[in-house]
């Protein structure tokens, strides 16, 4: 891929230059090269996951068998979920943008443990390959849903065991990344980068890293127990032997709820960078945003059982977890209001990153607010495990985390590759994507209200119309997505030079060349500016 940047004239290839060849990449300990390794591998799996989503939608275009059988469908949404969650959205922002930017944002030469960083990538790759291997070995692709609920997951004859170990390995990768980032933020800040001068993206990564560190081990344990249960049948969750199937769900969600904040917090960090830059405006409520990231991380570890409101849990459990769920929404609300206030009296440039950031505000709000509907005890009973939930989580994950990530790509790819994509095409792609997105997922809220359960291969005819709309939406979405990816790809290969600071950002990465030199900064630096150092009377140049 380094071939892609042909040294054009004076253009310096920075960390992309120097050593060439595959080995110089897959064994590199440079955080920037590792970030790109992640980018390429994660994006490949993203396309696989996307294609599966597309096939799911095709099947649902009409009741009955459309293009596949029930068993295939069940395997498809399982893989779609597993790939999207564990191979894509959990690692994507920390591993790609976090890896690339964290050292730059704090004025460091690399992360604290560069070799461990490389090892994390290898774990990611091995885990991913194991997940793929589960498709072709044993009793066929797993068909449990990404949640692996017992006792079904311990009884099905499909290849759940390998998938479980794959998730275990992926969890390891995530833990090591979190550990690395926490240590980096603590120990490697350049002189002058005090805690109140950290860019909010770094704060977000910091909060995320804590969740990765303290929640992921439970996931490792949980999937290991599934595998052990399948191999030895020890009966830990079997009621006939004194176990309790609901305890599995507790363990699973103890990780998997906090995991949704692993997905969204770094995205929120990106938004906190983009909005000030394109408004030429100091971020409003720096501390409110930083502290709310920590608050989300902490409170997020206390609400897991809102996924179990209809599971036969005790009423007290329902009371406690529903109440805490409403409280965890508050820090998100605080962030949204502070971002809005940042626009006030700024000068707003609707460049593609900003378009994604603003769309994020709306889509994430829709997703978050519908989270309240599924979090309230009375209404949760009706909406649980229906397409309403499917709508909710695609809005927060795709409309939230991934739109933020797309914004981040548009914002930082010119820094990473030193080249600019076509702004007009990017705007078009954004428009198509946004229209397709809403057409695809909004009908799911109505379907859910009407009672269509999720993970349904076949449905009753009264749900047909909205399913057709949704499927058509997915086609439009695809068009936008492919256009966007192609434009970014072409831009990074052969766009015009982007220059050091195309957007006028104030964080440290904009003070060095694009692409950044291998050693990042010329020796040790002393920082005396604030990451949001804008002044009244500024405009876009």
């Amino acid at each position: 891929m380094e071939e892609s940047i042909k040294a054009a004239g004076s253009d310096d290839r920075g960390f992309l230059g120097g050593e060439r060849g595959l080995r110089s990449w897959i064994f590199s300990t440079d955080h920037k090269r590792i970030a790109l390794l992640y980018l390429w591998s994660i994006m490949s799996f993203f396309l696989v996951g996307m294609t599966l989503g597309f096939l799911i939608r095709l099947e649902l275009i009409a009741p009955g068998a459309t293009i596949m059988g029930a068993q295939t469908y069940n395997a498809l949404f399982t893989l779609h979920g597993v790939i999207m969650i564990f191979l894509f959205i959990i690692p994507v922002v920390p591993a790609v943008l976090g890896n690339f930017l964290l050292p730059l944002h704090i004025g460091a030469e690399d992360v604290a443990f560069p070799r461990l960083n490389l090892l994390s990538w290898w774990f990611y790759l091995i885990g991913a390959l194991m997940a793929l291997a589960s498709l072709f070995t044993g009793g066929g692709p797993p068909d449990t849903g990404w949640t692996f609920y017992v006792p079904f997951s311990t009884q099905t004859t499909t290849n759940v065991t390998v998938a479980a170990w794959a998730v275990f390995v992926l969890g390891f990768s995530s833990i090591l990344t979190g550990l690395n980032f926490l240590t980096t933020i603590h120990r490697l800040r350049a002189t002058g980068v005090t805690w109140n001068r950290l860019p909010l993206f770094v704060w977000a990564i910091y909060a995320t890293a804590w969740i990765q560190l303290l929640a992921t081990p439970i996931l490792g344990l949980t999937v290991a127990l599934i595998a052990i249960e399948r191999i030895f049948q020890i009966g830990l969750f079997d009621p006939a032997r004194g176990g309790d199937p609901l305890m599995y769900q507790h363990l699973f969600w103890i990780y998997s709820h906090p995991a949704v904040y692993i997905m969204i917090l770094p995205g929120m960090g990106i938004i906190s960078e983009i909005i000030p830059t394109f408004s030429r405006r100091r971020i409003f409520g720096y501390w409110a945003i930083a502290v709310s990231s920590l608050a989300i991380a902490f409170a997020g570890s206390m609400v897991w059982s809102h996924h179990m409101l209809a599971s036969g849990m005790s009423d007290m459990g329902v009371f406690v977890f529903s109440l805490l769920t409403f409280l965890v929404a508050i820090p998100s609300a605080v962030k949204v209001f502070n971002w809005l206030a940042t626009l006030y009296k700024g000068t707003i440039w609707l460049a593609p990153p900003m378009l994604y950031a603003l769309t994020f505000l709306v889509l994430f709000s829709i997703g978050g607010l519908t989270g309240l509907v599924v979090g309230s005890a009375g209404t949760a009973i009706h909406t649980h495990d229906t397409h309403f939930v499917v709508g909710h989580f695609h809005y927060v994950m795709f409309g939230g985390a991934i739109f933020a990530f797309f914004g981040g790509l548009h914002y930082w790819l010119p820094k990473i590759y030193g080249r600019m994509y076509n702004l007009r095409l990017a705007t078009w792609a954004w428009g198509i994507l946004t229209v397709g997105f809403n057409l695809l997922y909004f009908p799911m809220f109505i379907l859910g209200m009407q009672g269509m359960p999720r993970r349904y291969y076949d449905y009753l005819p009264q749900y047909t119309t909205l399913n057709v709309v949704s499927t058509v939406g997915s086609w439009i979405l695809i068009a936008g997505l492919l256009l966007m990816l192609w434009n970014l790809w072409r831009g990074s290969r052969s766009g015009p030079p982007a220059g050091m600071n195309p957007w006028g950002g104030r964080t440290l990465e904009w003070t060095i060349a694009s692409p950044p030199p291998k050693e990042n900064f010329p020796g040790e630096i002393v920082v005396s500016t604030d990451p949001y150092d804008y002044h009244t009377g500024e405009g876009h140049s």
Partner: protein
Amino acid sequence: MSQTHGSYGTAKLGMWLFLFTEIILFGGLFVLYAVYYYFHPQGFASASHELSLGFGTVNTLILLTSSLFVAASLSALQKGERRLTLLLLSGTILVALIFLVNKYFEWSEKFAHGIYPNGPAMPNLAPGEVVFFALYFVTTGLHGIHVLIGGVLLTVIAFGVRRGSIHQGDYVKLENSGLYWHLVDLIWIFIFPLYYLIL
């Protein structure tokens, strides 16, 4: 500050963070223990009688002693007493082996009675007893794996000390491996009363 001065503290912080994840990993098993104990106090008590208090106590004492050796070996290295360091490390590794051998006998005794996952004795047990043994095997098994890893780690470190790559001026590898070993001990300090002592 930048990475050139401070890699000692950096490595140690990294190790501690890793230990936190280990605490949570075993913590998950303790969550299960707490809940199942709550559901089946009788079953747990009667099953716990089946475990040998003697083995458990000896293993506890052994492990605590090994922790002393490791802790002292660090002080020794810091003071430059290399021979003493090596002696203490060998002691620790020896103790780790004794622990594992003990564990082996303990497990095989259970196996001989048909108590193992899906073993012949299991269907006759009360539900609470079955989960007790399930948890017992998973927890002590996972702990055993940690003992093994810790032992191997310390062996590598001991060779490092002998070769001189780990010395008075650069001992963070010993310190970190020691931390890991202490964690293994720490976990056992809780496993012991929970599985052997409650009646």
